[in-house]
Structures are given as C-alpha cells and as structure tokens.
C-alpha cells in the first residue's frame, strides 16, 4: 500500500476543477430544489451547455475566452426559458421528467455525427485554450506546496474557479436572505398560498430556474476550462452525482452544496486510489481491480439512499427544515 500516493491524490480532490464544477452545479440545484422546490433532473444539461457553449464559441466562432463564457451564460438562460415557460405551470414531477429528457436530448445532439464539425461528436472538443491561457496573469512556474502544487495554467483555472465559486455563494447568500428569497421559499412550501398573496409565482420560479441554471453552466465551464469537453461526461449519472453532493451537504443550505461537492470528490479520489491498491496488495481477495473501482459507484448509490432516508436535510441542514415537503 502506497499511502503517501493515496493521501496526496486524495488531497488533490479538495481543490480540483471537478470539485469546483460540482460545487457550482450543486449550488444551482440548491437554488432550484432546496430553495424554490423545483425538481431539476437536468443539471447535466445545464453543465453541458456551459462546456459546449464555451468551447464552440471559441473553436467555431473564434471568440475570446470571456466572450465564450458570456455566450454560454446566454445559452443557459435560453435553455431555462425553453424548459420553464411550458413546464413551470405544471405539477412538480413534470418538471423532473421534462428536465431529464431535455438534458438527454441535448447530450444526444452534442453526440450525433450529424453536427460533427461543430460538436466533435463522440470525440468531444479540445484545443480551445489559447485565448484563456494568453490571459493568464500567473508567470510560468510552479505554485503551491505538497500535493497542491500547480503550474501556472492550472493555477489560473483554480483561481478563476474559486473566484466564480465565491461570487456565486455570495449572490446566493444575498438572494436567499432577501425578501426575494422569502417569496422563493414560500413558493417551495405552497405556491397557491403565495399566489393568493399577490406574487407572480411563475415569474419567481422562472427567475430561480434561470439563476440556478447559470450556476450549473458556470460549473460546466469550470469543468471544461482545464482540459476538454467530452460528451460522455454529461450523462444522467452526472445529474444524480450532483444531487448526491447536494443532499450530502444539505439541499436548503448555501454552504452545504460546496461542502457536499468537496466530500464527494475527496471520497471518490480516496476510493479510486485505495480500492485498486487493496486488491493488488491482496487485502480484497476474489475481485479484480476493475471490479474494485466499480465498488465506489455502488457506494455512491447506497450512500444516496441512506442519506435520503436517514438524513434528508444533509450535513448542514436544520433537522426541522426538511426540504422534502410533498
């Protein structure tokens, strides 16, 4: 057992772009589900819009990196409108079905050979980094210490990702503690009651959908910033993993989604390192190392079940403030 490698790889899970991407997407879901009560099962679609919007704007239209981000966010708003205008008037579980289907439609459209010139089909997209890296304020060199040592490009991704996360958390804090947040939480509890008090429930739900969607798309962008866009990532399982991270931290909290994402990825990094090593050192007999790496996904599923049954409010949630009202 190479404990130092295991430890070092696990420690990196703390600050990886994947962690920050998950945290952002989970924040978006917290806005949707935790505060507004919207059952969005298509967060992977919002993330895909972020990633593809960014990469396609740069590769196909020759935009600068920051223009690519703007394009992504506009696309995300349009996606929210397309999803929301028809479904937000319907019962909550319809939104769940529509969002999960819409995210799959998006993924299939990004995957099909029909648009291979733009989307790269199954290969995905890569090589869109020049503009972003040219804007890197960090001189060439290594930064950080121990397991958290990064080169200048990685540093640039991390700093930008962290900055985005801080901004999004602050916005959510302000929103949720404002009268706007009060209306949103009221809608989560009973939208008819809020409607009877003269609030335009549809408009509020739409605003919540758009803001959460933007957070999700920012997550997708941060995920795409360092490496490449791969259609195999934006599957329904990704949505469920983000949900797991959200529920782990606490759906109706602001720091919960961030904490949940960090725990999720640290655990994943730890298990993906420790399980194969347990096999190779003979501590897990009768199974192959491929089987060993499957175990952690079984654990995610089991963990999600236990969490929802025994601690639905998550780690940071208030016991009384269960978010699962019918």
């Amino acid at each position, binding site marked *: 057992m190479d404990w130092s490698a295991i430890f070092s*790889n696990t420690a*990196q899970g703390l600050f*990886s772009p994947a962690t920050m991407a998950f945290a952002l997407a989970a924040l978006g879901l917290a806005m949707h589900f935790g505060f507004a009560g919207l059952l969005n099962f298509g967060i992977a679609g919002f993330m895909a819009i972020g990633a593809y919007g960014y990469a396609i704007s740069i590769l196909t239209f020759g935009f600068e990196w920051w223009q690519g981000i703007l394009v992504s966010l506009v696309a995300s708003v349009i996606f929210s409108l397309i999803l929301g205008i*028809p*479904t937000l008037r*319907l019962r909550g*579980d*319809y939104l*769940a*079905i*529509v969002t*999960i*289907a*819409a995210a*799959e*439609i998006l993924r*299939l*459209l990004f*995957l*099909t*050979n029909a648009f291979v010139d733009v989307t790269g*089909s*199954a290969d995905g997209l890569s090589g869109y980094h020049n503009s972003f890296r*040219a804007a*890197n304020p960090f001189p060439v060199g*290594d930064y950080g210490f121990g*397991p958290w040592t*990064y*080169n*200048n*490009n*990685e540093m640039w991704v991390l700093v930008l990702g962290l900055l985005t996360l801080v901004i999004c958390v602050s916005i959510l804090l302000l929103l949720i503690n404002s009268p706007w947040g009060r209306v949103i939480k009221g809608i989560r509890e009973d939208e008819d009651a809020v409607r009877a008090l003269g609030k335009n429930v549809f408009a509020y739900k739409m605003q919540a959908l758009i803001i959460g969607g933007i957070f999700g798309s920012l997550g997708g962008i941060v995920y795409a910033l360092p*490496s490449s866009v*791969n*259609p*195999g*990532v934006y*599957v*329904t*399982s*990704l949505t469920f993993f983000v*949900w*797991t991270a959200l*529920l782990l931290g606490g759906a109706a909290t602001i720091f919960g989604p961030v904490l949940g994402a960090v725990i999720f990825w640290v655990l994943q990094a730890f298990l993906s390192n420790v399980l194969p090593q347990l096999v190779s050192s003979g501590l897990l007999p009768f199974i192959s190392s*491929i089987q060993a790496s*499957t175990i952690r*996904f*079984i654990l*995610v*599923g*089991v*963990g*999600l079940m*236990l*969490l*929802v*049954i025994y601690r*639905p409010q998550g780690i940071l949630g208030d016991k009384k403030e269960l978010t*699962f009202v*019918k």
Partner: protein
Amino acid sequence: MILSRSRTGAKYWTQIGLLTTILTLMFGGLFATSASADSVGEDLPYRVQGNVKNEGTALEGVRIVVSGGGYTAETVTDADGKWLIGVPEKAGYSVSLDQSTLPEGIAVIEEGGAEQSVEIGPSGAVTKNFFIGEGERIVVSLFDQIIARIIYGLNFGLMLGLAAVGLSLVFGTTGLSNFAHAEMVTFGAVTAFFLGGVLSLPIWIAIPVAVLISGAMGWGLDSGLWRPLRRRGLGLVQLMIVSIGLSLAVRYIFQFFVGGGTNQLPGFDAPKIKLFGATSLSIIDITSMVLSLVVIFAFAWWLLNTQTGKATRAISDNPDLAAASGIDVDKVIRIVWIVAAGLAGLSGVLWAYFRPGIKWDMGAQILLLIFAAVTLGGLGTAFGALLGALVVGMLVEVSSLVIPSDLKYVGALVVLIVILLVRPQGILGRKERIG
C-alpha cells in the same frame, strides 16, 4: 506559447483525465449511441472490414455504415476499395452499403441486399465483402421501408410496453416514480444470461425461470425496502431519490459481476427471414412479439377480471377510499411489485434479444423511453402506458427513416415534452379537478 506541461502538474491532469475517462467509460449514458474515437475506430478492440470491388475494379468513396448494440460508425472506402471500422464489442453488427454512393449502373446483387449482418469471429475481426455487379439497384420503396419500420417499432414497443405497464402500476398504486425500474429490466436479462449462458440451461427454461426470479426480486424489494419506507412516511420526492440511489447502486453491482462489455443470450443470431417488402424478422423477433402479446393480454385479463386486478385499479383511483372499502392495500401493492418486476424482467430478456446483447446498463438505456411511454399514456393508467409504449416504439423506429439513427431517441423525447405541454394528463389520463 505556454503549452508545456510541468512535471508536478501531471498528477492533476491525470486526475482530471482519469475522472473524465471513468465518467465516459463507466456511465455509458442512458443511450450509448457513441461512435468510435476515430472516424473508423482503429483503436477499438474489434474490427469489421471489407473490400468493395466491381469485377476486380476497386470502388473508392463508397459509404459503409456499421451498427449494432447501440453503436454506429461509418466510413468510406479508400482508393483500393478497402474499408475498416473498429467496433467496441465482440458481438453481432449490421453492415450496410450506401448504394447511392456507388457509380451509376451497378448495385449490390447479393441475396439480402445492401444491409447484411455479421458476427465478429474468434480473431476479433470479420470481413464483409459485398457482391457488386451490373444490375438494377434493389431500391426499397419508401412504403415498404415504412411498413418494415412500423413492424420493428411494434416489436420494440411491445417490449417497452411490458416494462411500462409495470412502472405505471407501481406509480398508480404507490405514487413512486421508480427510476430503479430500469435495473429490474436489466435484472431479467442478466438472470436469463446466468441461467442460459453460464449454467447452460435450455433457453425455454431459462427465460421463464428468470421471469419468476424477477418477480421474486420485486417481492423482495417491496418487503425489504419500499414497504418499510412507506411505513416511515417518506415523501414521494424522497422515495423517488431513494429509487435513483438504488438504480445507481444496482447498476454498478451488475457491472461488478458482468463487467462493462456485452454478452449474448443463446440464439440471438437466428437468421432473418424475409417476409415481405423490406421486412425481415428472425424467429426470435416473431417469438418475442407473440410472447409479448400473449403476456399483455393475460395481464389485461388479470387487471380487468380478477379481484386483485380490480383492487389494483381501485387503489390507483383513490387509495384512501380503497382502504376504507376493506381492500388490503399492502397486499395489493406487494402483488403489484411482483407483477411489475416479472413483466420488467421479461421485457429485459426481450430487450437483450432486440439490442442484441445483455449489458450492465441496458435497462438505463431505455428508462427514459419507458417514462415517455408511461407519461404519454397518462400517468398511472396501465393501458395508457401500453398504448404510449407502442407509440414510442414506432416513433423511434419510423423516425429513423428521416433523422440520423443516432438521434432516433430524440424524436421520442421531444414528443414526450410536447405531450406534457399540450395534454399533461396523457392520452388516456383524466383531467384532474383543481381546488
């Protein structure tokens, strides 16, 4: 300018790369319609290849499409008339030659036409050379194609219907949107594979036993998980997320045992028999359709005529009233779970023949189509779900005449969304009274 990667950074990139690879490889997605990494997929483990020649003259630029097991890839022949397409699994594939890319006046003159089935041989490769010569192209009329597609769609739809009625019954009686229904589908196929493929039982024994074991699984899930959770008073959203967790866990348990590849059930490669027009079905296809129809009629009779069937419908209609009228709701729900799981298991076996092959995430590949069928028919109405499944099945097959085949599920999903918008209660559902 800054393109060099530092040594220390490698770990970090490896991690991202690893995660991306794992996400890509392991979560093959709900619809694994991925093409290969290369346009001809030379890095994939197995190969389908051939040579297109007309009386010794190599034909360049002829389009070849290989598809099967949810995988599609295409290429064109090179100057020597050669082509090669890598495929991910040791399985059966269909190879088709696009006759519109052949020079004028020549056509595929082989029995069976320009679309042929091949099976990867022991060497990991298979060669398919089309016989080409002067002659009329065997042009299939649009009408014949539509008829053929409708029949394939019927087959697919009946199979979906078996799964959809179960999902709909469970939803109707318990209110649960069960995402783990997909895994009950896979469970049937995996069990049949274990019995027929591993234990080498005759398939006509293996399948009924697999269905029975699936039903037992349904009983186990209800008494071991869902009933205790109902007793705990979990909300419907909570239950739905529990089912998502269960779905993930069970899916990876399947992967743990059967691996990431595809395995075949006995008899999957039965030859196709040309029936009429462009329609050709294997004996398996025909058996599958007949079997689905018989089971569905038996199910309908059960639902309409037996005491339990009537009680099931009463509970779907109004659970409180049903309980007050002396119906043992828990018992009926238990039976519903057994029936739903059995039907899902059978559906899984048929899906394994339709795809063809059993795979750890095969149920998840069609889960949204099953949901679409249930929603289309009207949430909670069993016959609606069946009708919805037939519509979805045919839509998927017929729409692939006009849209690329790797987008054929998109049509069904778009229809799902549109239906929810214009008629949220579904085809057979009732309008709910507000207030």
